[in-house]
């Protein structure tokens, strides 16, 4: 039939159109990735691999960072998940105000956040002096370090988690209710698992932000030194060469959790 070749040609042309952006995307993407990797290549090339051992102080910073970040993440998840769920289910009336508040915590520069924490929790503040009476100092202590990490990472987790909960169709919770399940059951068995991809993304973001936090910690928790502040101290005290070992350790401990979360969430998603 005369119509068939024409139709085939039309489909072929359409397929070409769909593939063309992909053909362009591959080299462009490789170029962009290469650009992003330049600092890491530079680092790898200039590292003196024979003198890579971190110092005792470096290891101390590693344990401080890892321990505090894990504790901060636990608190962020415990407090941030209900907040995100509440934000996701809020009526539009309060919506703009709540969005603005959440964005405010997100856009505050880390250094400014450190200063604001010093104002709010420092020894001369109402909260700081009250906490001190119970023996809890909120500057240059592990508690202060935790505080810095929570303020730095929580907004990222809450924002991602809110988006994740919003993306869960309300229909599924309704069906759970018609199946005799109360709100708690449907939260644990429906909303939470359906939001896991976004929650995992939020958790990965929060981990990265808390682990790498420098600006907030610099002001309110110079001690105990976590990895970022220790990098700064190494640079000041010894010079660039002292930064390399700790930086490689930072990459090694920073990468696995977000990587695993991403693989887990995507794997479950695909299944």
């Amino acid at each position, binding site marked *: 039939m005369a119509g068939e070749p024409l139709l085939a040609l039309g489909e072929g042309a359409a397929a070409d159109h769909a593939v063309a952006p992909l053909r362009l995307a591959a080299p462009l993407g490789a170029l962009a990735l290469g650009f992003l990797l330049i600092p890491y290549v530079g680092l790898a090339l200039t590292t003196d691999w024979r003198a890579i051992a971190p110092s005792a102080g470096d290891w101390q910073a590693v344990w401080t960072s890892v321990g505090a970040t894990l504790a901060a993440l636990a608190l962020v998840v415990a407090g941030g998940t209900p907040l995100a769920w509440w934000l996701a289910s809020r009526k539009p009336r309060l919506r703009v105000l709540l969005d603005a508040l959440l964005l405010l915590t997100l856009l505050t520069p880390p250094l400014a956040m450190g200063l604001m924490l010093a104002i709010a929790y420092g020894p001369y503040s109402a909260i700081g002096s009250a906490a001190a009476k119970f023996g809890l100092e909120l500057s240059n202590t592990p508690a202060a370090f935790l505080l810095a990490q929570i303020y730095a990472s929580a907004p990222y987790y809450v924002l991602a988690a809110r988006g994740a909960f919003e993306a869960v169709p309300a229909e599924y919770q*309704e069906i759970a209710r*018609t199946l*005799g399940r*109360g709100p708690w059951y449907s939260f644990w068995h429906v909303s939470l698992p359906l939001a896991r991809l976004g929650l995992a993304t939020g958790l990965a973001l929060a981990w990265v932000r808390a682990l790498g936090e420098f600006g907030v910690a610099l002001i309110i928790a110079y001690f105990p030194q976590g990895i970022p502040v220790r990098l700064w101290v190494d640079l000041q005290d010894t010079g660039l060469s002292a930064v390399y070992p700790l930086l490689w350790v930072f990459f090694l401990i920073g990468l696995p959790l977000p990587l695993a979360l991403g693989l887990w969430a995507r794997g479950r998603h695909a299944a």
Partner: protein
Amino acid sequence: MRPEPAPSVPLVAEAGAAHAALVVDLRVPQPVALTARFEVRGFTALLGATGAGKSSLLRALAGLLPATGTPFGGLPAHRRPVGYLPQGAGLFPHLSVWRNVAFALDGSRGARHAAALAALERVGLADLADRMPAALSGGQRQLVALLRALARHPSLLLLDEPTAALDPLTAETVAADLIARLRAAGVPALVATHDARLAAMADHVAVLHDGSVVQQGAPAAIFVAPGSPQAAALLGWRNLFAGRLRGPDTLEWPAAGATLRLPGPPAALPGAALSFGVPAGAVRLIPPGPAAGRENRLAGVVSACHVLSDRATLGIAIGTETLFATLPPTNLPGVGDVVGVVVPAEAIRLWSPAPPQDPARNPGRQRGNAGFPHRKASRGHGADAG
């Protein structure tokens, strides 16, 4: 008014037994204002146009929308003895088939698994127990959702457009299968649909229009004698026109430039504007000729001709109107041919006034027939109209 049924006590015990009626009397303020009073008997179809509020009514019955009235008035959704199947079945996408079926069950994992497998076994879906919902066909999803709802032993099942997401051929099979299973389960079901074919399979039909149930009854009665032109349109009548009474048994059809004889005097005064309808299956074709003037014989031009399996639908232009006729697909005239048609007087159904502005607001029309039945109502044409 029927007392509130206790949870997990089926209202209908035996399939085939005379269906005990569950009286629904609900007022829903939002998002569509509804005042619905009707009965659920066995497999009941809630027939309404898109946007008429069928889904809202179902959701109100499930306790998902605020409403006042019976049944289940005031009970929170998770305490109502209902099973609710939304459009597209609404299986939890993150749970395997057996976990979906077991969702409402309590107990150990082993006991829930065994119960779900037994239920799946009964419908021949045990092989799919470990599949995810995305891997199921539309019909299988409906069935799994049904099992999930039945696990709670509901007193009433609510199904929202169960066949809307399926292609027409599958829809028919799935609907028949669904109805058979519901009858076997002995649970009364209210099925929201805009599909007259699904309504035709029901035990009872309630027609929702303009915020209230305007007519209810057995499908055989409803399809033959729709209570309003709107109900007729929902039931698949395509020949719906405006007319005017000229005498005790004469109807003027201005758009067609024709006058039709009626079988008897309708309960309306001459001069009254009326709506009228003719089942497409009642319209007969006759050879063209000097037919004009003879009673209910009209001349028209074939404007469309569609053949589907054993049935042809002809569109016949008469004046500015199109009259549809369904016929056996043999010796059909071609498009553009002049034909004669007979509109049998006894097949004409009248409704008043024309157009009925708001039959819903009249409480007296809740159950009854808003039209003016003739002394002899037409029979046997409604179900295959259109």
